[in-house]
C-alpha cells in the first residue's frame, strides 16, 4: 500500500499538506503529533471518510482517492476504523449483537451468520459472548472499546486505522487494550495506522513512526531511530516533554521546553512552519520550507529540516 503526496484543504485551511507515507501489510505505522496537526484528518482520508483535495491514496495497488461511495463499499471490508471515545462511537440503542454485525449485514451477510460471527468476535476480543444482547451502557470503558475493536474486525479488514484508541481509557485499562491490539495483529496479520498523541503508547505498538506538525510530516522512520536519536528539533522537544514515571530520571533529564503554542493551521507561518518555536531556527528557515529527505545516508528515516540533528 502506498499513499504518495496528498493534499487536502477545505477553502482556506489546509489541514494536511502534501504528506506521503506507506504502510506495509501486517505493519504498524504510528502517527503522532499535537492537536490540530492533521493526524485525525489523515486517518479519515485513508479510510476515505474524507476525500483528499489533491494527491493520491493507493490501497493494494489501486488508487482509491476519488472513488464514489458505491465504489468504496467493497473496500470498506478491507479498511476499518477504531475511534477514541468508545461510548460515543457505539449506538446506545443497539445491542452489541447489532453493533458488531452491522458491517456484515451491510456487506450482505445473513442475520444468522452475522450474529454467529459477532459472538466469535466477542470471544476473540476478550468479551463474554453471552453478553451479546446487552447494550453499550452495560459495559465499562475498556469493554466498550473491545466492542469497537470487534466491530472493526467483523469484515476481516487488512488495515485498521485506530484514532487515539486508548487515550479516553483509565490508565489501568489502557495496557489491556494495547495488549489486545498487539495480539490481534499477530493473530490476524492486520496492518495498523495508529494515531495517538501519547508517544509512550506509540513507541510500544509501532514499528515505524511519523511525526506530524501543522499538517506536514516532519520526521518519519523506524521507531528505534526516531526515538533514540530524533533528527528533527520538534521530535526532540516532543520526546523531552513527555514526563517519565521515574522521579530520579525526571530530575536528571535535560529538557527542551518549546516556547509558545502550535500555530493555527488557518494561518501557517512562512518557511518551515516550526521556525517560530524552533530553538535552532536560522534565516533560511523563515523563508524556505524544508522538504522531507533522507537524514543519514543508508537509513530509511526521513526528516524535513534544514539543520537536522546529526545521528
Amino acid at each position, binding site marked *: 500500500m502506498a499513499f504518495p503526496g496528498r493534499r487536502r484543504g477545505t477553502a482556506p485551511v489546509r489541514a494536511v499538506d502534501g504528506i506521503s507515507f506507506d504502510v506495509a501489510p501486517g505493519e504498524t505505522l504510528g502517527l503522532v503529533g499535537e*492537536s490540530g496537526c492533521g493526524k485525525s484528518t489523515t486517518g479519515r482520508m485513508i479510510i476515505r471518510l474524507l476525500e483528499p483535495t489533491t494527491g493520491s491514496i493507493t490501497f493494494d495497488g489501486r488508487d482509491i482517492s476519488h472513488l464514489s461511495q458505491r465504489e468504496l463499499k467493497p473496500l470498506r471490508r478491507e479498511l476499518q476504523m477504531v475511534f477514541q471515545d468508545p461510548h460515543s462511537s457505539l449506538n446506545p440503542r443497539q445491542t452489541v449483537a447489532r453493533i458488531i454485525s452491522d458491517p456484515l449485514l451491510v456487506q450482505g451477510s445473513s442475520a444468522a451468520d452475522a450474529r454467529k460471527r459477532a459472538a466469535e468476535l466477542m470471544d476473540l476480543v476478550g468479551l463474554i459472548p453471552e453478553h451479546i444482547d446487552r447494550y453499550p451502557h452495560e459495559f465499562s470503558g475498556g469493554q466498550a472499546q473491545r466492542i469497537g475493536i470487534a466491530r472493526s474486525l467483523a469484515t476481516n479488514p487488512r488495515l485498521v486505522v485506530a484514532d487515539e484508541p486508548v487515550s479516553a481509557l483509565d490508565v*489501568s485499562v489502557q*495496557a489491556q487494550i494495547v495488549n489486545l491490539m498487539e495480539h490481534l495483529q499477530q493473530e490476524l496479520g492486520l496492518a495498523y495506522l495508529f494515531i495517538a498523541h501519547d508517544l509512550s503508547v506509540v513507541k510500544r505498538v509501532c514499528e515505524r513512526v511519523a511525526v506530524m506538525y501543522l499538517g506536514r510530516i516532519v520526521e518519519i522512520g523506524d521507531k528505534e531511530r526516531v526515538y533514540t536519536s530524533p533528527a528533527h528539533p520538534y521530535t526532540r522537544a516532543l520526546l523531552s516533554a513527555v514526563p517519565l*514515571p521515574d522521579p530520579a530520571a525526571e530530575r536528571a533529564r535535560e*529538557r527542551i*521546553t518549546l516556547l509558545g503554542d502550535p500555530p493555527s493551521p488557518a494561518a501557517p507561518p512562512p518557511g518551515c512552519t516550526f521556525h517560530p518555536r524552533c530553538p535552532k531556527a536560522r534565516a533560511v528557515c523563515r523563508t524556505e520550507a524544508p522538504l522531507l529527505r533522507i537524514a543519514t545516508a543508508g537509513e530509511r528515516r526521513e526528516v524535513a529540516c534544514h539543520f537536522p540533528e546529526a545521528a
Partner: protein
Amino acid sequence: MTDPQILLSVRDLSVTFATKRGPVRAVDSLSFDVHRGHTLGIVGESGSGKSVTSMAVLGLHTGAEVTGSISLDGQELVGIPEREFNRLRGRRMAMIFQDPLSSLHPYYTVGEQIAEHHRVHFNSRRSVARKRAVEMLAEVGIPEPERRAGEYPHHFSGGMRQRVMIAMALACEPELLIADEPTTALDVTVQAQILELIARLQEERGLAVVMITHDLGVVARVAHEVLVMYGGRAAEQAPVDTLFASPAHPYTRGLLDSLPRLDDADDVPLRAIPGSPPSLLTPAPGCAFAPRCARAAGASPSDRLRCETERPLLSGPAGHPAACHFPAYEGVAS
C-alpha cells in the same frame, strides 16, 4: 504537636452523595497533610475520589455530606458557614481546573475576571485591581499583558487560557493552590510549559500545591509526596522517590508495571491490570482492589478470603503507609 510546616491537614474526610440509587461514599476516611512549599500529588483513575477530595477542601460540595476534618493553617473548614468559605476561597486557597475554557466566563475580558478577585477580597479600587491583573498576566508569561488583559477567553489558546487561570488563582497571593488535572487537556509541549510555570511560581511564593492527576509521569515530575487513591480511599502514601522505587500497594505496583514507557528498552508485553475500576454504588466489603489484584489472586484461600471480606486499613511505616493486608515493603518478600 502541630508542625508549622503543615499548611493543610485533612483527617478522616468522607464525602457522601445522596443519589437515587442510594448514598454513594465518593471519599472514605481520607487523611493527608500538605506542607508549605511542597507539592502533594494525588493520583487516581476516574471515580477514585481525587476531584471530590479537592472540591471538599474548597467547600464546593453543596448538598453532599462532608465529615471529618479539614484544617487550613489551624482553621477548621468542615462545617463553617458559606460566608466564611467565601473569604478563604481565592484568598488563602485557590483552584485551577482541567478545562480552562469552561472555567472562564466568555462575556468578560480576562483582565476583568482576574481583577474581580482582587476587588472582592481586598475591596480595592477598579484601577488598582486592573493594574494587579496586568501584573499577574505578565508574571505567568503572557506577552503584551496590557493589551491581552482587554481580550476575551476565546482569543487565547488552550495553554494561554491555563496561564490566565493560574494568574487568576494567584492574584490574591493564596498559600494553597489546588490543580485538578491542569494539563490533561493540553498538548504535551504546552503541558511542559505549564508545569514549569507552576514550579517557578511555587518556588517564588512558597506555595503549597495539590496536583491532582491520572498521569504518573506528571507526578514523578512535580510531586514531593504522593497519595494514590482507589475507589474513594487512600491506597498508599509515600514520598515520591519511595513510591516509584518501591511501591507497597499492589495497585501502585500494577499501575507502574502496566505503563508503556519511553525509557523501556525491550518490547515485552505490557503487564496489564485485569478488570476495570470499581463502582462506588456497590462497594465491595473487603479491599476495593481485591477483584483485580494479582497478589490476592496468588494468595492462599484464607488470605484471599481476608482480602475479599476485610477492608484493609492504612498502616505500615510512618511516611509510607499502605492500605493492603499484604503490602510489599522493601526487604520484605511480597
